Structures are given as C-alpha cells and as structure tokens.
C-alpha cells in the first residue's frame, strides 16, 4: 500500500521529469512536431516509439500487472478528434503546459481550449453519449 505522501512525491518527480524530458525532446516546438508527423524528421518519432519499446520490455521483465480495457465506442472517434487537434494546435494535454513554460504565451489559449473540451466531454456524455467506463472521466 502506497502512502499518500509517497504518491505525491512520485507525481512531483514524474511531472518534473516529464516536463524536462518532453521539452528537451522538442515536443513543444510546432515545427519539430509537424516534421515528425510528415516523416521529414523521425527523431521525435523514434523517441516515442523507442520509449514504448523499452517500456514493453521492462514491464514484461518486471511482470507488471496489466490493466483491463475494452475498445468502447468512444475510442476511435475520440482518437480522431485528438489527432486532429494535436496536428493543428501542436498540443496534447501536457504540451501546452510546457509550451507556456518555454515562453509561448498563445499556448495559454490552447490550455483554455483543453479545459473547455474536457468539461464538454463529461457534459456531453451525461446528456447524449451515455458511454459507460473508460470514457469522459468514467
């Protein structure tokens, strides 16, 4: 059982390390991001894919437990919307934070958009979609 303090410390260390790493890879730089998505420069793609490869091997060696997850109705449409938003704004949910930290002030608008979108998802799910687990914060 992990104590609350240990989880807090782990989250702070993770946040600092993630912000530091992602900024130094260049995910906050829209030019670099577009060059990755158009395969002009595979450096950032290999960073991501290489990380997944290392994690798969490490989790298999350490016998890390797997989480259940079924492919619910929100996965594909949600991923299409996210992919579109990422390509045009340059932000996944962590990226606008590090863009602002790098001095890109307009990324504050992206953060406002992310906040509106996340709140809309819960509202729309309760009112229209009625998806059960795995979607919109459920």
């Amino acid at each position, binding site marked *: 059982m992990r104590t*609350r303090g240990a989880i*807090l410390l*782990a989250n702070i*260390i*993770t*946040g600092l*390390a*993630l*912000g*530091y790493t992602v900024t*130094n890879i260049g995910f906050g*730089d*829209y030019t670099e991001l*577009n060059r990755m998505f*158009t395969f002009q420069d595979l*450096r950032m793609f290999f960073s991501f894919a*290489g*990380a997944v*490869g290392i*994690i798969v091997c*490490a*989790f298999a060696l*350490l*016998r*890390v*437990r797997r*989480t259940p*997850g079924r*492919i619910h109705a929100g*996965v*594909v449409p949600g*991923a*299409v919307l996210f*992919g*579109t*938003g*990422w390509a045009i704004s340059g932000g*996944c*949910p*962590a990226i*606008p*934070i*590090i*863009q*602002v*930290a*790098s*001095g890109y*002030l307009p990324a504050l608008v*992206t953060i*406002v958009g*992310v*906040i509106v*979108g*996340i709140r809309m*998802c819960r509202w*729309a799910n309760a009112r229209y*979609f009625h998806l059960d687990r795995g979607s*919109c*914060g459920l």
Partner: protein
Amino acid sequence: MSTYWPWWAGAVGLALVTINYTLTTDRSFGVSSAWDRVLHWRRERQLEQMDDEFTDDQALADALAAATAEHFGTAPGTPTMPPVSHGESQPLVPDVEPTAGENSSVTNTRPAPLVTQAALLVSIFLGGLIAATTSGRFRLRFDMGAGFRDLVTADPTAMIATLFVGGVLVGFGTRLAGGCSSGHGLSGCGRLRPVSIVATAVFFGTAVAVSFLLWKVI
C-alpha cells in the same frame, strides 16, 4: 540555442518516467485523466471522501476479523474482504499464485489522490521551465514559432481561434477516447492493452493525415 536531445536520450527519458511512475505508485499515469480529475475536483473530492469511508469500514472489518481469528484460533492471514475498487466491480484476487504469463494480480483501480494529480500538472510546468531556461531556449513570445506561422496561419486572430479549437478537440477527444499520448501511448501501449494500441494508432494516423494536409495542401 542548443539542439534537441537525440532520439535515444528521449526514448530512455520517457521510458524511465513511465516505468518509475508505474513502479512507485502502482498505477498508470496519464496527463489527460489528471486534467479531467482536477477540473472536476468537486465531484472527485466527493468520490474520494466516499472511498475513504469505505477504506475505514474495511479497516474496521479487518480488525474485527483479526480479533475473531485470535479468539477462535483461525489461521492468521486469512483473507477477509476483497480490495475496495473505485467505481467498478472488481474481480476477486485468487489466493493461488498466477500461472506463468498471467497477470500477477489485479490492478489498483483507485486513482491517485486529487492533490497529487494537481501536483503532477504544476510539476510538468516547472520541469518544462527548468529545461527551457537551462537550454537557453526560453523566450517570451506572442507567436507559436515559424512552423506554425508558415503551415497554419500568420494572422494573430486566426492563430488564437485555431489554438482554441485545437485545444477543445484535444480535451474532448482525449477524454472520449479515455486517454492521451501518455495514458494510451506510453502506459497503455507499454502494457500492450488492445484499446491503447488502437487509440494510439488512430490518433497518430489522424495527426499524420492532418499534418500532411497542412504541409502540402492548405
């Protein structure tokens, strides 16, 4: 201005962050779910308080069971109650060792405490700030860089509108899909979850298609 990290350094960095978080907290980390819970903090706090009450009830039941065992001489360590889950029914943990290749046990489905997820978001900002200042890349600016100006728009009003719409799509889409590039992409794909592999393939594929449109067509 210094150059960005080589690919292998980025891969090792991202992998270490994910593996360390998983091992130290016994949970998967995802930035979009942290956002989601922090933004709905009132409801999430209520859920946490309900969860705490459950935990107390379980502690009471465990203590009673232990006292009963002591009195009647039942073997200690007998399981008393299944672990409390957060919002979903959870299969019981079998008392036998799992077979090779099976999962070692069920996952901790209780999310990390709300305050720790708020700390995660603040720490991402601080980590980014440290990286930007130490590498000499920090510069306050009112644009999103040359790439955005050339590929998307040079007009400030259109830029604000694009960033807002893009942000809404990111926020709505990640929560509808149940994760983002960290939750599905790193943690989920790392665990070889089919839902995460599908989500990552779709959001990456869509981003590739839209980026090509911006680069070659629009």
